[in-house]
């Protein structure tokens, strides 16, 4: 199907199913139970999972395949966001023009930066990309404020022209939509004491994420992907055979930049604000870490890594001592205070500590990232059965990818 072989088709179908069922899967705990704090099935976070998933998939196309470690990918995310918000301000609240422009602009931006940076390799390449991104961030925060609204971030206002939309007289800001379907629209389904939220914006992101994933799958399995892997394994040998690596790496860089631009455009479409921090080196570092944490070079890994980090950031940071006291209220007083004190080091204002520890633990014990953890668990389950060949859900790129067509 769709130019994929059987195992890949099965893999893609599983991904599609998981993505579409996310609003249900992320809401495993009953409301009113203490564990409901861990539910993540609310629109904003689900959207972020999908969007950062796209960002990480794109980053992985560059890093996972070619081994070029860009430390400035956040610049493309930021540029994409700014372009999209400007479209929302000038043209229409329909998100499509914004997203298209975001991809085009970030693609062009990536073309320029990639063209220059790819003249160097290894750490020199990383620092070049970092330098470009930091320049973009610093300028966006200060001198370019007329264009970016600096510290606050670019926002919509009532006086924006929005030339394609009907005049707005309501006195409140219009909402982003896709041909009339508002991104913020949600349907809530109450079932078995759980509330499932099906949000238009999430499904829009989810469908784009599936398409992004499918394209990435095709690239992994294509001759082009093979070339990129050749760059990683031995660029010199590739040069000797008369193949120039740069056009391939540049193409990968631009595609990867457009993925970031798409993610940026989606962020702005879900929540029309573009802040300069999106371009800071910490944001670039975040996507690097998402990818490595999940498993660089694997198809699903970066998405898992993205989900993992966003989950920690949004769920763990909200567990304050008050909540902890609620959970452990069944313990005797002295013990309760002790347990709460310990737990509070890792949650609420201590969520960074959990983040740092998780990075260390994963990389120490699972050298292949979270994907390796998944594979190890998978192997445990399979041990009982007869030897099942790798069925594609263990998706480290195969040593000899087939020609897709």
């Amino acid at each position: 199907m769709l130019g994929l072989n059987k195992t890949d088709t099965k893999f893609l179908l599983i991904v599609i199913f998981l993505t579409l069922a996310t609003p249900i899967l992320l809401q495993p705990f009953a409301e009113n139970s203490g564990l409901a704090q861990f539910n993540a099935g609310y629109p904003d976070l689900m959207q972020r999972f999908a969007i950062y998933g796209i960002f990480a998939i794109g980053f992985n196309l560059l890093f996972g395949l070619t081994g070029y470690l860009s430390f400035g990918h956040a610049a493309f995310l930021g540029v994409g966001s700014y372009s999209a918000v400007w479209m929302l301000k000038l043209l229409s609240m329909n998100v499509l023009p914004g997203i298209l422009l975001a991809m085009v602009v970030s693609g062009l931006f990536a073309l320029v930066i990639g063209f220059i940076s790819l003249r160097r390799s290894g750490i020199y390449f990383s620092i070049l990309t970092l330098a470009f991104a930091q320049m973009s961030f610093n300028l966006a925060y200060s001198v370019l404020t007329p264009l970016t609204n600096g510290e606050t971030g670019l926002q919509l206002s009532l006086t924006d022209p929005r030339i394609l939309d009907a005049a707005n007289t309501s006195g409140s800001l219009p909402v982003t939509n896709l041909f009339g379907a508002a991104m913020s629209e949600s349907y809530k389904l109450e079932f078995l004491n759980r509330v499932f939220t099906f949000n238009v914006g999430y499904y829009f992101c989810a469908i784009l994420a599936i398409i992004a994933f499918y394209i990435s799958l095709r690239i992994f399995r294509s001759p082009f992907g093979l070339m990129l892997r050749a760059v990683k394994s031995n660029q010199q040998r590739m040069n000797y055979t008369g193949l120039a690596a740069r056009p391939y790496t540049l193409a990968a860089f631009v595609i990867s930049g457009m993925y970031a631009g798409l993610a940026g455009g989606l962020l702005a479409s879900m929540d029309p604000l573009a802040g300069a921090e999106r371009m800071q080196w910490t944001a670039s570092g975040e996507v690097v870490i998402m990818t490595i944490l999940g498993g660089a070079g694997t198809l699903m890994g970066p998405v898992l890594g993205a989900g993992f980090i966003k989950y920690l950031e949004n769920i763990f940071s909200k567990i304050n001592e008050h909540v902890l006291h609620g959970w452990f209220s069944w313990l005797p007083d002295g013990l309760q205070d002790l347990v709460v004190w310990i737990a509070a080091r890792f949650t609420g204002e201590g969520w960074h500590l959990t983040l740092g520890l998780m990075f260390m633990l994963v990389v120490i014990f699972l050298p292949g990232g979270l994907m390796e953890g998944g594979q190890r668990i998978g192997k445990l389950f399979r041990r009982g059965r007869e030897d099942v060949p790798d069925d594609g859900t263990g998706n480290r790129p195969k040593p000899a990818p087939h020609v897709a067509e």
Partner: protein
Amino acid sequence: MSNANFTRRGLLKSSAVAGAGLAMPTIFTGAAWSFTNEPTAGTVTLGFNVPQTGPYADEGMDELRAYQLAVEHLNGEGDGGMLSTFSSKALDGAGILGNKVAFVTGDTQTKSDAARASAKSMIEKDGAIMISGGSSSGVAVAVQGLCQEAGIIFMAGLTHSNDTTGKDKKANGFRHFFNAYMSGAALAPVLEKAYGKDRKAYHLTADYTWGWTQQESIQKATEAIGWQTVNNVMTPLASTDFSSYITPVLQSGADVLILNHYGGNMVNSLTQAVQFGLRDKMVNGKQFEIVVPLYSELMAKGAGKNIEGVFGSTNWSWKLQDEGTKAFVKSFGTKYGFPPSNAAQTCYAQTLLYADAVSRAKSFNPCAVVEALQGDSSSLPGIDSAANKGFLFDGLGNGQTLYRAADHQCFKDVLVMKGKENPENEYDALEIVEVTPVKQVWYEPDNPMFAGGNLGECNPGA
């Protein structure tokens, strides 16, 4: 502590009782509510969104302490704090409109993006009906915009930029904290008295929105008393070493250095300026002086001895002697063992003001709350202005205060502070020089520094 404090969506609380685990799914759409996150089942959830990581984490923690105290007092626990001194008597210590107050917290990371994500999760996941907090203007403006769109009330925490209630003001957003204009207006007369009319000022300004509005405000105010502005130099936000910005100051012939910096920037630039010996110099026959327009207790602590004798301004100080302040300092100090910062006071006051507005409006509907906070057209005495209309109150530590209906900015006395020589302890770094009466910091809503904004209409969401 009971589990009811941590309940989640209002929606479920009502329906869960009716039939937990009913097999028939029920579909709700937005139309099921009259406004977003209407409280049910006797609990109302407030969202406190403060920086818990990054350079402002300590300030965020102090804000959070104040919020917890406010929630306790609203629920009738503790000693009641400023509830007894507050001029409006609508609050009775039995929650808000009989609903027990619960709260959720989040981490803004002092980034607009993260702050909005955190606020969104409070609205979408936890069913918060009001969001408060923040420790920077960028975050405040970003979250205020979000709350306007979502139909939630936003009670700003520490935000000092003119834009929050100027260019970026929103109908659903309210600010109790003072702003850059007020800092300038309050400082200028004190500076005139202390340093004279004939001064040449050199500005170092953090290169972002707050820095610019602060610089513009203080420049206008000091030029009005006859000072000249020699130069205004922008410094990158990420700077930690300001030496190359400080060295040209003496050459320029300036005799006052104004540091429009906050947080770590301010601590470093002030420390380094003092290290360069600027304050030991005589220029134009006058002692060289440094001014820091916006002070915070925590930053004063960070700058140590370097702030001795340096003028600045704050919204409030625990050293004030009115009844409201005394009550608040007592309950805060008893609970936590040290006096509150002015960020804590504004957050505490904002929570009470919100609860009071709901109680007076007898509704959680944001539009009713906005109306209640905009008040009954009462006005501050002694100010002759058509805009002098809004909700007038007293007893929250700042004396008589007006929540102005025109732009949702509080008008009250502003404190001019000075770094104390030989402080007794780390909470004693600043002393009150003057309580500038509100009349002096008053401005019209159409003041050019605040122009370009539009409150729009209140949005009840859903």
